[in-house]
């Protein structure tokens, strides 16, 4: 059974009013436990609307969303339980910190789950460990932290609920390259250590290429493409028409092919292209 399954999912904002607009139309997607999915699409393509359906923050205006086989629309109580299963990290989550200490902020989710004090403490420390929030800052006010640290605390607050599905909407926007890299690495570690499903929304094709094993491309409220990074990034022209891009490495690889250098059809990470080029060199293959 897929962890997430949408059946003809449709969402229309302000339905029946003159401002009616279709944000999602007939989305049929299945995501299995443990997948690392990259969600890409231009601004306004429906990505954020889609992810808000995954734990019932938005309810479909048509179709269904099933989480472990349970329809999120069926009862309020179930929806409440499901919120702990699907952790959602919004864009710029640091603006959502509100407690007076880091520890309290991270423990907000587990406290709402009515766990014992010891269990809450364990989860806070575990979550902080995953995202690299040192215990020395537990008693600090979140307001005193740097932007990157705040974001880690916000992500820890979601991870502390031990969600089996972790959804992150642009978790690295506005961070410097080192900050981006280490947050993505942390997410990857969580994915590997817990077997959680991860859904990463990003505008950075490079990040998506490096971490996701499956890409879903949203265009104007439709899930227009769905496949492995190779399958998606081999369609550079189509991606560009819809306002997206391919990683720079993919561009270099296709230019090399034009120059009659026999690199594989679709390279999308530096390490792939590097080993392809080095193996050509070793063989001493004529170019």
């Amino acid at each position, binding site marked *: 059974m897929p962890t997430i399954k949408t059946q003809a999912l449709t969402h229309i904002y302000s339905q029946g009013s003159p401002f009616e607009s279709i944000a999602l139309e007939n989305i049929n997607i299945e995501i299995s436990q443990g997948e690392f999915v990259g969600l890409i*699409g*231009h*601004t*306004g393509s429906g990505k954020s609307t889609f992810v808000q359906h995954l734990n019932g923050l938005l309810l479909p205006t048509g179709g269904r969303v099933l989480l472990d086989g349970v329809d999120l629309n069926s009862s309020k109580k179930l929806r409440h339980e499901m919120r702990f299963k699907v952790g959602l990290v919004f864009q710029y989550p640091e603006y959502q910190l509100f407690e007076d200490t880091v520890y309290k902020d991270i423990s907000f989710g587990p406290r709402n789950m009515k766990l014992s004090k010891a269990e809450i403490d364990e989860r806070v420390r575990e979550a902080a460990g995953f995202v690299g929030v040192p215990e020395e800052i537990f008693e600090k006010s979140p307001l005193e932290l*740097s*932007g*990157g640290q705040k974001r880690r605390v916000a992500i820890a607050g979601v991870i502390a609920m031990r969600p089996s599905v972790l959804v992150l909407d642009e978790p690295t*926007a*506005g*961070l*410097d*390259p*080192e*900050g*981006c*890299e280490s947050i993505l690495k942390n997410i990857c570690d969580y994915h590997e250590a817990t077997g959680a499903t991860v859904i990463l929304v990003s*505008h950075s*094709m*490079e990040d998506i290429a490096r971490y996701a094993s499956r890409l879903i491309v949203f265009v104007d409220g439709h899930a227009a493409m769905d496949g492995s990074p190779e399958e998606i990034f081999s369609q550079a022209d189509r991606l560009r028409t819809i*306002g*997206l*891009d391919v*990683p*720079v*490495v993919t*561009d*270099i690889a296709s*230019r*090399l092919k*034009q*120059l009659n*250098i026999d690199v594989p059809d679709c390279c999308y990470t*530096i*390490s792939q*292209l*590097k080993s392809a*080029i*080095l193996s*050509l*060199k070793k063989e001493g293959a004529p*170019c």
Partner: protein
Amino acid sequence: MKPIIQVKDVYFRYEGDDPLSSALNGTTLDIEQGRFVVILGHNGSGKSTLAKHLNGILLPDKGCILVDGMDTRDETKLLEIRRTVGMVFQNPDNQMVASVVEDDVAFAPENLGYPPEEIRLRVDEALKLVDMYDYRLHSPHLLSGGQKQRVAIAGVIAMRPRCIVLDEPTAMLDPAGRHEVIDTIKRLCREHGITIILITHHMNEAIDADRVFVMSNGKVVSEGTPKEVFSNVEALKAEGLTVPDSVELIYQLRLAGLDIPKEALTVEETAQAIATALK
């Protein structure tokens, strides 16, 4: 050429911050008129603090900043300085003030007290320059991120500044929006001679710059053409930065023993360099 902006040994500390940790720590740099300049640096390196000094939003504790020869600490010159250097920030939604695109662009010239005909002229000109004239009667909140950011740039252009400072203008945009904004500012620089100072974390945006400055701990630690700055991969990594993926690829190939020159930056240059090395 005479620099339009001169930053001379500037120190600045935010009120309430640790006396030992200054945001700017002896920053010195010159920016020539008409250039496309990129400032790189990790979070907290002082880039944005420097940007806010360039049109007198912040004033230095020590040292000085000259904008076209005018000292930003001279209050009588402040208006003229702000007309010379315009600013665009990261979040386009925070910069919109009106409910119609052209009203938004007209905001600054109206405040400067220009006659209505002059305002009309400047607004139309500015919107055409950023390729948003067709949207002049639209509502800003219905535009895409890239379009909003171009309207914000038009709002600055309407003051006819000679220099525009953009602080991470593409951080919140999708790839198409990023291209729109970067293409627009390059055009303003190349075709209209407006000095562009772009602060960014996207290394790829620095490839076409005339000059790149790297900041760390409130100081300029490296400067030069993109080729010069990016050729020193280790130094940039030590500053918590990366290099464009093209440079990283060549760097790793060199480490693996491939004999390949390290000057390539663009996709074309990189592909050609690799092709030559494999021949």
